[in-house]
Protein backbone atom coordinates (compact mmCIF):
# COMPACT_ATOMS: atom_id res chain seq x y z
CA UNK A 1 0.00 0.00 0.00
CA UNK A 2 1.30 3.47 -0.85
CA UNK A 3 1.72 5.70 2.14
CA UNK A 4 2.04 9.34 1.15
CA UNK A 5 4.68 11.18 3.18
CA UNK A 6 3.73 14.50 4.67
CA UNK A 7 5.22 17.22 6.76
CA UNK A 8 3.65 19.78 9.07
CA UNK A 9 5.67 22.93 9.61
CA UNK A 10 4.94 26.48 10.76
CA UNK A 11 5.52 28.13 7.37
CA UNK A 12 4.41 27.11 3.90
CA UNK A 13 5.34 28.77 0.59
CA UNK A 14 3.20 31.81 -0.25
CA UNK A 15 1.80 30.36 -3.44
CA UNK A 16 1.03 26.68 -3.55
CA UNK A 17 -1.37 25.14 -6.00
CA UNK A 18 -1.69 21.68 -4.46
CA UNK A 19 -3.40 20.26 -7.52
CA UNK A 20 -2.55 16.69 -6.53
CA UNK A 21 -4.06 17.20 -3.10
CA UNK A 22 -7.24 18.66 -4.60
CA UNK A 23 -7.51 15.74 -7.01
CA UNK A 24 -7.50 13.34 -4.10
CA UNK A 25 -10.56 15.12 -2.70
CA UNK A 26 -12.60 15.26 -5.90
CA UNK A 27 -15.25 13.00 -4.41
CA UNK A 28 -15.63 15.49 -1.57
CA UNK A 29 -16.25 18.23 -4.12
CA UNK A 30 -19.11 16.28 -5.66
CA UNK A 31 -20.48 15.43 -2.22
CA UNK A 32 -20.48 19.07 -1.14
CA UNK A 33 -22.25 20.08 -4.34
CA UNK A 34 -24.83 17.38 -3.73
CA UNK A 35 -25.22 18.46 -0.11
CA UNK A 36 -25.68 22.07 -1.12
CA UNK A 37 -28.18 21.33 -3.87
CA UNK A 38 -30.25 18.64 -2.14
CA UNK A 39 -30.05 19.36 1.55
CA UNK A 40 -30.99 23.00 1.23
CA UNK A 41 -34.39 22.04 -0.17
CA UNK A 42 -35.32 19.42 2.40
CA UNK A 43 -38.22 20.39 4.65
CA UNK A 44 -39.20 23.40 2.59
CA UNK A 45 -42.61 24.41 1.26
CA UNK A 46 -41.79 24.79 -2.42
CA UNK A 47 -38.36 23.17 -2.57
CA UNK A 48 -36.36 23.73 -5.75
CA UNK A 49 -39.19 25.89 -7.14
CA UNK A 50 -37.59 28.75 -5.23
CA UNK A 51 -34.83 28.64 -7.80
CA UNK A 52 -37.25 29.95 -10.39
CA UNK A 53 -39.60 31.96 -8.20
CA UNK A 54 -36.93 34.30 -6.90
CA UNK A 55 -35.58 35.63 -10.23
CA UNK A 56 -39.09 35.58 -11.68
CA UNK A 57 -40.56 37.82 -8.99
CA UNK A 58 -37.58 40.16 -9.18
CA UNK A 59 -38.05 40.41 -12.94
CA UNK A 60 -41.75 41.19 -12.57
CA UNK A 61 -41.12 43.90 -9.97
CA UNK A 62 -38.34 45.46 -12.07
CA UNK A 63 -40.54 45.40 -15.17
CA UNK A 64 -43.31 47.20 -13.29
CA UNK A 65 -41.17 49.72 -11.41
CA UNK A 66 -38.37 50.51 -13.85
CA UNK A 67 -40.10 49.53 -17.07
CA UNK A 68 -43.67 50.77 -16.69
CA UNK A 69 -43.48 53.47 -14.00
CA UNK A 70 -40.07 55.07 -14.44
CA UNK A 71 -39.84 53.99 -18.10
CA UNK A 72 -36.10 53.31 -18.40
CA UNK A 73 -34.98 52.20 -21.85
CA UNK A 74 -34.15 48.53 -22.34
CA UNK A 75 -32.15 48.76 -25.55
CA UNK A 76 -35.11 47.58 -27.62
CA UNK A 77 -35.40 44.30 -25.75
CA UNK A 78 -38.62 43.13 -24.09
CA UNK A 79 -38.45 44.30 -20.47
CA UNK A 80 -38.57 40.85 -18.79
CA UNK A 81 -35.78 39.56 -21.05
CA UNK A 82 -33.62 42.61 -20.40
CA UNK A 83 -34.01 42.56 -16.62
CA UNK A 84 -33.73 38.80 -16.21
CA UNK A 85 -30.50 38.63 -18.21
CA UNK A 86 -29.00 41.22 -15.87
CA UNK A 87 -30.42 39.62 -12.74
CA UNK A 88 -28.94 36.23 -13.72
CA UNK A 89 -25.41 37.65 -13.93
CA UNK A 90 -25.75 39.77 -10.83
CA UNK A 91 -27.23 36.92 -8.75
CA UNK A 92 -24.45 34.56 -9.74
CA UNK A 93 -21.87 37.14 -8.70
CA UNK A 94 -23.50 38.14 -5.44
CA UNK A 95 -24.31 34.56 -4.40
CA UNK A 96 -20.73 33.45 -5.07
CA UNK A 97 -19.43 36.42 -3.08
CA UNK A 98 -21.86 36.07 -0.17
CA UNK A 99 -21.58 32.32 0.23
CA UNK A 100 -17.79 32.38 -0.05
CA UNK A 101 -17.44 35.25 2.41
CA UNK A 102 -19.14 33.21 5.14
CA UNK A 103 -17.24 29.98 4.44
CA UNK A 104 -15.24 30.10 7.66
CA UNK A 105 -18.24 31.03 9.77
CA UNK A 106 -20.63 28.49 8.24
CA UNK A 107 -18.16 25.63 8.48
CA UNK A 108 -16.46 26.48 11.78
CA UNK A 109 -17.81 23.26 13.22
CA UNK A 110 -16.32 21.08 10.49
CA UNK A 111 -13.12 23.06 9.96
CA UNK A 112 -12.36 22.81 13.67
CA UNK A 113 -12.45 19.04 13.58
CA UNK A 114 -11.50 17.62 10.20
CA UNK A 115 -8.72 18.57 7.85
CA UNK A 116 -9.15 18.88 4.11
CA UNK A 117 -8.03 21.70 1.81
CA UNK A 118 -10.48 24.46 2.72
CA UNK A 119 -10.50 25.90 -0.80
CA UNK A 120 -12.67 22.89 -1.72
CA UNK A 121 -15.68 24.50 -0.05
CA UNK A 122 -15.74 27.76 -2.09
CA UNK A 123 -14.86 25.74 -5.17
CA UNK A 124 -17.84 23.41 -4.78
CA UNK A 125 -20.10 26.32 -3.79
CA UNK A 126 -19.33 28.13 -7.03
CA UNK A 127 -20.05 24.94 -8.97
CA UNK A 128 -23.39 24.37 -7.25
CA UNK A 129 -24.20 28.06 -7.92
CA UNK A 130 -23.35 27.35 -11.53
CA UNK A 131 -26.05 24.65 -11.67
CA UNK A 132 -28.52 27.23 -10.38
CA UNK A 133 -27.30 29.63 -13.05
CA UNK A 134 -28.01 27.02 -15.74
CA UNK A 135 -31.59 26.74 -14.50
CA UNK A 136 -31.89 30.54 -14.57
CA UNK A 137 -30.65 30.59 -18.16
CA UNK A 138 -33.28 27.97 -19.08
CA UNK A 139 -35.85 30.27 -17.48
CA UNK A 140 -34.53 33.15 -19.60
CA UNK A 141 -34.87 31.06 -22.77
CA UNK A 142 -38.44 30.14 -21.81
CA UNK A 143 -39.32 33.80 -21.32
CA UNK A 144 -37.69 34.73 -24.62
CA UNK A 145 -39.96 32.17 -26.29
CA UNK A 146 -43.11 33.36 -24.49
CA UNK A 147 -42.79 37.16 -24.66
CA UNK A 148 -43.60 38.41 -28.19
CA UNK A 149 -40.73 40.18 -29.93
CA UNK A 150 -39.25 40.44 -33.39
CA UNK A 151 -36.76 37.58 -34.00
CA UNK A 152 -33.64 37.82 -31.82
CA UNK A 153 -30.33 38.18 -33.64
CA UNK A 154 -28.85 35.02 -32.22
CA UNK A 155 -25.44 33.86 -33.33
CA UNK A 156 -24.27 30.51 -31.97
CA UNK A 157 -20.66 31.46 -32.64
CA UNK A 158 -20.95 34.62 -30.53
CA UNK A 159 -22.62 32.75 -27.67
CA UNK A 160 -20.05 29.94 -27.61
CA UNK A 161 -17.08 32.30 -27.60
CA UNK A 162 -18.33 34.91 -25.14
CA UNK A 163 -20.76 33.34 -22.63
CA UNK A 164 -18.41 30.74 -21.05
CA UNK A 165 -15.74 33.40 -20.63
CA UNK A 166 -18.18 35.85 -19.06
CA UNK A 167 -19.51 33.23 -16.62
CA UNK A 168 -15.98 32.21 -15.62
CA UNK A 169 -14.98 35.84 -15.01
CA UNK A 170 -18.10 36.49 -12.92
CA UNK A 171 -17.32 33.41 -10.81
CA UNK A 172 -13.69 34.50 -10.37
CA UNK A 173 -14.74 37.98 -9.27
CA UNK A 174 -17.39 36.68 -6.87
CA UNK A 175 -15.26 33.95 -5.34
CA UNK A 176 -12.11 36.11 -5.29
CA UNK A 177 -13.80 38.96 -3.43
CA UNK A 178 -15.59 36.41 -1.25
CA UNK A 179 -12.27 34.82 -0.23
CA UNK A 180 -10.84 38.21 0.70
CA UNK A 181 -13.90 39.06 2.78
CA UNK A 182 -13.93 35.57 4.33
CA UNK A 183 -10.48 36.29 5.77
CA UNK A 184 -11.42 39.79 6.90
CA UNK A 185 -14.66 38.73 8.60
CA UNK A 186 -12.75 36.35 10.86
CA UNK A 187 -11.32 39.35 12.62
CA UNK A 188 -14.12 41.85 12.12
CA UNK A 189 -17.45 40.09 12.18
CA UNK A 190 -19.54 43.17 11.44
CA UNK A 191 -18.03 43.32 7.96
CA UNK A 192 -20.66 40.80 6.99
CA UNK A 193 -23.40 43.43 7.26
CA UNK A 194 -21.31 45.76 5.14
CA UNK A 195 -21.11 43.10 2.43
CA UNK A 196 -24.86 42.43 2.34
CA UNK A 197 -25.66 46.13 2.45
CA UNK A 198 -23.22 47.16 -0.26
CA UNK A 199 -24.16 44.28 -2.54
CA UNK A 200 -27.77 45.46 -2.47
CA UNK A 201 -26.79 49.02 -3.31
CA UNK A 202 -24.08 48.23 -5.86
CA UNK A 203 -26.57 46.38 -8.01
CA UNK A 204 -28.25 49.67 -8.88
CA UNK A 205 -24.95 51.10 -10.13
CA UNK A 206 -24.48 48.26 -12.61
CA UNK A 207 -26.41 47.77 -15.82
CA UNK A 208 -28.92 45.33 -14.34
CA UNK A 209 -31.74 47.87 -14.57
CA UNK A 210 -30.56 50.18 -17.37
CA UNK A 211 -28.51 49.76 -20.56
CA UNK A 212 -25.09 51.38 -20.70
CA UNK A 213 -26.17 53.22 -23.84
CA UNK A 214 -28.77 55.25 -21.90
CA UNK A 215 -26.31 56.34 -19.17
CA UNK A 216 -24.89 59.87 -19.42
CA UNK A 217 -21.58 59.83 -21.30
CA UNK A 218 -19.62 61.41 -18.45
CA UNK A 219 -20.92 58.78 -16.01
CA UNK A 220 -19.96 55.80 -18.14
CA UNK A 221 -16.40 55.38 -16.75
CA UNK A 222 -17.77 55.28 -13.19
CA UNK A 223 -20.38 52.71 -14.12
CA UNK A 224 -17.80 50.61 -15.94
CA UNK A 225 -15.45 50.81 -12.95
CA UNK A 226 -17.44 47.92 -11.51
CA UNK A 227 -16.24 45.01 -13.66
CA UNK A 228 -19.62 43.28 -13.30
CA UNK A 229 -21.15 46.03 -15.44
CA UNK A 230 -18.86 45.16 -18.33
CA UNK A 231 -19.62 41.48 -17.90
CA UNK A 232 -23.39 42.02 -17.91
CA UNK A 233 -22.99 44.11 -21.07
CA UNK A 234 -20.90 41.38 -22.68
CA UNK A 235 -23.48 38.75 -21.66
CA UNK A 236 -26.29 40.75 -23.28
CA UNK A 237 -24.16 41.41 -26.34
CA UNK A 238 -23.50 37.68 -26.75
CA UNK A 239 -27.16 36.76 -26.41
CA UNK A 240 -29.01 39.62 -28.11
CA UNK A 241 -26.38 41.65 -30.00
CA UNK A 242 -27.23 44.81 -28.02
CA UNK A 243 -24.84 47.05 -26.18
CA UNK A 244 -21.31 45.75 -26.40
CA UNK A 245 -17.92 46.49 -24.97
CA UNK A 246 -14.75 48.14 -26.25
CA UNK A 247 -11.32 46.56 -25.97
CA UNK A 248 -10.20 48.60 -22.96
CA UNK A 249 -13.26 47.73 -20.87
CA UNK A 250 -12.94 44.05 -21.80
CA UNK A 251 -9.26 44.01 -20.81
CA UNK A 252 -10.20 45.77 -17.57
CA UNK A 253 -12.84 43.14 -16.73
CA UNK A 254 -10.48 40.26 -17.45
CA UNK A 255 -7.51 41.65 -15.55
CA UNK A 256 -9.52 42.72 -12.51
CA UNK A 257 -11.03 39.22 -12.29
CA UNK A 258 -7.58 37.61 -12.44
CA UNK A 259 -6.03 40.02 -9.93
CA UNK A 260 -8.86 39.81 -7.38
CA UNK A 261 -9.06 36.04 -7.63
CA UNK A 262 -5.30 35.64 -7.16
CA UNK A 263 -5.27 37.92 -4.12
CA UNK A 264 -8.22 36.07 -2.63
CA UNK A 265 -6.63 32.68 -3.24
CA UNK A 266 -3.30 33.63 -1.65
CA UNK A 267 -4.86 35.31 1.38
CA UNK A 268 -7.24 32.40 1.91
CA UNK A 269 -4.45 29.82 1.71
CA UNK A 270 -2.53 31.65 4.40
CA UNK A 271 -5.55 32.13 6.60
CA UNK A 272 -6.94 28.59 6.44
CA UNK A 273 -4.01 27.24 8.44
CA UNK A 274 -4.44 29.40 11.50
CA UNK A 275 -7.94 30.78 11.39
CA UNK A 276 -9.27 28.33 13.95
CA UNK A 277 -7.12 30.08 16.58
CA UNK A 278 -8.84 33.40 15.91
CA UNK A 279 -12.52 32.70 16.26
Amino acid sequence: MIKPMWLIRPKEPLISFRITELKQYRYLISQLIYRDLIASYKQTLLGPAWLIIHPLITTVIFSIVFGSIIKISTDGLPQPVFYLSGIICWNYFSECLLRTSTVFKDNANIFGKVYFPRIIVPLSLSISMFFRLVIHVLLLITIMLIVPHQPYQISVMRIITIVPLVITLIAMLGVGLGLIFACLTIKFKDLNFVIIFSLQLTMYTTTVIFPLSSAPKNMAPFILANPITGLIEAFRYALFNTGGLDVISSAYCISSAIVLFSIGYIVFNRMERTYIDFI
Partner: protein
Amino acid sequence: MSETILHVEDISKRYNLSRSGSISGDLSKWISSIKYPKSNPDFWALQNINFKLNQGDRLCVTGDNGAGKSTLLKILSKITIPTSGKIYGKGKITSMLEVGTGFHPELNGIENVFLNGAMLGMTKRDIQIKLDEIIDFAQLGDHVNTPVKRYSSGMYMRLAFATAATLHSEIMIMDEVLAVGDQNFREKCIAKLHELSNNFGKTIILVSHDKANRISLCNKEIILSKGKMI
Protein backbone atom coordinates in the same frame (compact mmCIF):
# COMPACT_ATOMS: atom_id res chain seq x y z
CA MET B 1 6.31 -4.10 11.12
CA SER B 2 7.78 -1.49 13.43
CA GLU B 3 8.31 1.24 10.85
CA THR B 4 8.29 4.81 12.16
CA ILE B 5 5.06 6.35 10.99
CA LEU B 6 4.89 9.59 12.94
CA HIS B 7 7.75 11.70 14.16
CA VAL B 8 6.93 14.77 16.24
CA GLU B 9 9.95 17.01 16.52
CA ASP B 10 10.11 19.80 19.07
CA ILE B 11 6.56 21.06 18.62
CA SER B 12 5.51 24.25 20.41
CA LYS B 13 2.30 26.21 20.14
CA ARG B 14 1.77 29.76 21.30
CA TYR B 15 -1.59 31.43 21.66
CA ASN B 16 -1.95 35.16 21.84
CA LEU B 17 -4.45 35.83 24.58
CA SER B 18 -4.87 39.56 24.12
CA ARG B 19 -6.67 39.45 20.80
CA SER B 20 -9.30 42.15 20.89
CA GLY B 21 -11.35 41.89 17.71
CA SER B 22 -11.76 45.57 16.99
CA ILE B 23 -9.58 48.15 15.29
CA SER B 24 -9.40 50.44 18.33
CA GLY B 25 -8.51 47.46 20.54
CA ASP B 26 -5.74 46.42 18.19
CA LEU B 27 -4.38 49.97 18.11
CA SER B 28 -4.28 50.35 21.88
CA LYS B 29 -2.62 46.95 22.16
CA TRP B 30 0.00 48.03 19.65
CA ILE B 31 0.65 51.25 21.56
CA SER B 32 1.00 49.46 24.89
CA SER B 33 3.39 46.95 23.32
CA ILE B 34 5.64 49.89 22.40
CA LYS B 35 5.35 51.46 25.84
CA TYR B 36 5.89 48.27 27.81
CA PRO B 37 7.86 45.88 25.60
CA LYS B 38 8.43 43.51 28.54
CA SER B 39 4.80 42.60 29.12
CA ASN B 40 4.07 39.31 27.43
CA PRO B 41 0.48 38.18 27.10
CA ASP B 42 1.39 35.05 25.16
CA PHE B 43 0.37 31.68 26.37
CA TRP B 44 2.32 28.57 25.47
CA ALA B 45 -0.16 25.74 25.09
CA LEU B 46 2.57 23.29 24.13
CA GLN B 47 6.31 23.41 24.62
CA ASN B 48 8.92 21.17 23.07
CA ILE B 49 6.91 18.06 22.46
CA ASN B 50 8.90 15.15 21.02
CA PHE B 51 7.85 11.61 20.31
CA LYS B 52 7.97 8.87 17.72
CA LEU B 53 5.30 6.33 16.90
CA ASN B 54 5.71 3.10 15.02
CA GLN B 55 3.19 1.25 12.97
CA GLY B 56 0.67 -0.49 15.24
CA ASP B 57 1.39 1.66 18.28
CA ARG B 58 -1.46 2.73 20.52
CA LEU B 59 -0.55 5.97 22.23
CA CYS B 60 -2.51 7.38 25.10
CA VAL B 61 -2.30 11.10 25.85
CA THR B 62 -3.31 12.05 29.36
CA GLY B 63 -3.11 15.11 31.54
CA ASP B 64 -5.27 17.54 33.48
CA ASN B 65 -7.67 19.93 31.83
CA GLY B 66 -5.77 22.61 29.95
CA ALA B 67 -2.60 20.54 29.74
CA GLY B 68 -2.55 20.86 25.96
CA LYS B 69 -3.96 17.50 24.93
CA SER B 70 -6.50 18.90 22.50
CA THR B 71 -4.02 21.37 21.07
CA LEU B 72 -1.62 18.53 20.36
CA LEU B 73 -4.32 16.53 18.60
CA LYS B 74 -5.40 19.59 16.61
CA ILE B 75 -1.86 20.13 15.37
CA LEU B 76 -1.48 16.46 14.49
CA SER B 77 -4.71 16.51 12.49
CA LYS B 78 -3.71 19.71 10.64
CA ILE B 79 -6.54 21.78 12.09
CA THR B 80 -4.05 24.39 13.22
CA ILE B 81 -0.32 24.83 12.76
CA PRO B 82 2.48 24.69 15.33
CA THR B 83 4.35 27.89 16.19
CA SER B 84 7.61 26.02 15.84
CA GLY B 85 8.78 22.48 15.24
CA LYS B 86 8.04 19.88 12.61
CA ILE B 87 6.02 16.73 12.23
CA TYR B 88 6.90 14.04 9.71
CA GLY B 89 4.29 11.45 8.92
CA LYS B 90 3.42 8.63 6.59
CA GLY B 91 -0.05 7.79 5.39
CA LYS B 92 -3.43 9.33 5.98
CA ILE B 93 -4.68 10.64 9.28
CA THR B 94 -8.27 10.28 10.45
CA SER B 95 -9.23 12.37 13.39
CA MET B 96 -12.28 12.13 15.55
CA LEU B 97 -11.90 15.19 17.68
CA GLU B 98 -15.58 15.20 18.39
CA VAL B 99 -18.30 12.68 17.83
CA GLY B 100 -20.12 12.94 14.52
CA THR B 101 -18.08 15.71 13.04
CA GLY B 102 -19.25 16.80 9.67
CA PHE B 103 -22.56 15.03 9.83
CA HIS B 104 -25.19 17.04 8.06
CA PRO B 105 -28.40 17.03 10.11
CA GLU B 106 -30.71 16.92 7.08
CA LEU B 107 -29.01 14.00 5.36
CA ASN B 108 -29.68 10.41 6.38
CA GLY B 109 -27.23 7.94 7.86
CA ILE B 110 -25.97 6.48 4.60
CA GLU B 111 -25.61 9.87 2.91
CA ASN B 112 -23.63 11.06 5.90
CA VAL B 113 -21.30 8.08 5.75
CA PHE B 114 -20.47 9.06 2.19
CA LEU B 115 -20.04 12.71 3.10
CA ASN B 116 -17.82 11.82 6.03
CA GLY B 117 -15.73 9.43 3.97
CA ALA B 118 -15.33 12.13 1.34
CA MET B 119 -13.98 14.52 3.96
CA LEU B 120 -11.37 11.91 4.81
CA GLY B 121 -10.32 12.02 1.16
CA MET B 122 -11.83 8.70 0.12
CA THR B 123 -13.47 7.84 -3.16
CA LYS B 124 -17.01 6.64 -3.68
CA ARG B 125 -15.87 3.08 -4.33
CA ASP B 126 -13.75 2.89 -1.17
CA ILE B 127 -16.79 3.84 0.85
CA GLN B 128 -19.25 1.58 -0.99
CA ILE B 129 -17.11 -1.46 -0.21
CA LYS B 130 -17.18 -0.68 3.50
CA LEU B 131 -20.78 0.49 3.74
CA ASP B 132 -22.32 -2.79 4.96
CA GLU B 133 -19.63 -3.21 7.56
CA ILE B 134 -20.29 0.30 8.89
CA ILE B 135 -24.06 -0.15 9.09
CA ASP B 136 -23.58 -3.52 10.77
CA PHE B 137 -21.13 -2.15 13.33
CA ALA B 138 -23.31 0.86 14.13
CA GLN B 139 -26.36 -1.37 14.82
CA LEU B 140 -28.74 1.20 13.42
CA GLY B 141 -31.11 -1.16 11.64
CA ASP B 142 -33.68 0.67 9.54
CA HIS B 143 -32.69 4.04 10.94
CA VAL B 144 -29.89 4.41 8.40
CA ASN B 145 -32.46 6.03 6.13
CA THR B 146 -33.57 8.58 8.74
CA PRO B 147 -32.06 12.07 8.78
CA VAL B 148 -29.41 12.11 11.49
CA LYS B 149 -31.03 15.06 13.23
CA ARG B 150 -33.62 12.58 14.49
CA TYR B 151 -30.99 10.27 15.97
CA SER B 152 -30.46 9.81 19.68
CA SER B 153 -27.00 10.82 20.85
CA GLY B 154 -26.12 7.14 21.24
CA MET B 155 -27.07 6.34 17.64
CA TYR B 156 -25.18 9.39 16.43
CA MET B 157 -22.10 8.31 18.31
CA ARG B 158 -22.31 4.70 17.09
CA LEU B 159 -22.55 5.78 13.47
CA ALA B 160 -19.69 8.22 13.87
CA PHE B 161 -17.41 5.70 15.50
CA ALA B 162 -18.32 2.98 13.02
CA THR B 163 -17.58 5.32 10.12
CA ALA B 164 -14.21 6.43 11.46
CA ALA B 165 -13.13 2.97 12.58
CA THR B 166 -14.15 1.24 9.38
CA LEU B 167 -12.90 3.81 6.88
CA HIS B 168 -9.59 3.59 8.66
CA SER B 169 -6.42 5.39 7.68
CA GLU B 170 -2.87 4.65 8.81
CA ILE B 171 -3.12 6.95 11.80
CA MET B 172 -6.28 7.45 13.82
CA ILE B 173 -6.74 10.21 16.37
CA MET B 174 -9.52 10.04 18.93
CA ASP B 175 -10.34 12.64 21.53
CA GLU B 176 -12.29 11.06 24.38
CA VAL B 177 -14.74 9.46 22.02
CA LEU B 178 -14.95 6.42 24.24
CA ALA B 179 -16.58 8.48 26.96
CA VAL B 180 -19.91 8.29 25.11
CA GLY B 181 -21.97 5.21 24.47
CA ASP B 182 -23.05 2.40 26.77
CA GLN B 183 -20.82 -0.24 28.34
CA ASN B 184 -21.51 -2.79 25.59
CA PHE B 185 -20.64 -0.49 22.78
CA ARG B 186 -17.56 0.80 24.58
CA GLU B 187 -16.22 -2.73 24.88
CA LYS B 188 -16.96 -3.30 21.23
CA CYS B 189 -15.06 -0.13 20.35
CA ILE B 190 -12.04 -1.16 22.40
CA ALA B 191 -12.04 -4.58 20.73
CA LYS B 192 -12.25 -2.86 17.36
CA LEU B 193 -9.31 -0.58 18.14
CA HIS B 194 -7.24 -3.60 19.23
CA GLU B 195 -8.11 -5.35 15.99
CA LEU B 196 -7.14 -2.28 13.94
CA SER B 197 -3.72 -1.96 15.49
CA ASN B 198 -2.89 -5.67 15.78
CA ASN B 199 -4.31 -7.01 12.53
CA PHE B 200 -4.10 -4.00 10.27
CA GLY B 201 -1.07 -2.26 11.75
CA LYS B 202 -2.93 1.00 12.33
CA THR B 203 -1.47 3.58 14.67
CA ILE B 204 -3.91 4.99 17.19
CA ILE B 205 -3.61 8.14 19.27
CA LEU B 206 -6.15 8.45 22.01
CA VAL B 207 -7.04 10.92 24.73
CA SER B 208 -8.62 9.24 27.68
CA HIS B 209 -9.18 10.05 31.31
CA ASP B 210 -10.36 6.56 32.08
CA LYS B 211 -7.54 4.57 33.62
CA ALA B 212 -9.09 1.22 32.75
CA ASN B 213 -9.27 2.15 29.05
CA ARG B 214 -5.70 3.31 29.17
CA ILE B 215 -4.33 0.11 30.62
CA SER B 216 -6.37 -2.20 28.43
CA LEU B 217 -5.73 -0.32 25.23
CA CYS B 218 -2.44 1.49 25.02
CA ASN B 219 1.18 0.44 24.76
CA LYS B 220 2.66 3.94 24.97
CA GLU B 221 1.71 6.91 27.07
CA ILE B 222 2.40 10.62 27.14
CA ILE B 223 1.51 12.66 30.19
CA LEU B 224 1.14 16.38 29.61
CA SER B 225 1.23 19.02 32.26
CA LYS B 226 0.96 22.71 31.46
CA GLY B 227 2.01 22.10 27.90
CA LYS B 228 5.10 20.06 28.69
CA MET B 229 5.79 16.36 28.61
CA ILE B 230 6.50 14.80 31.98
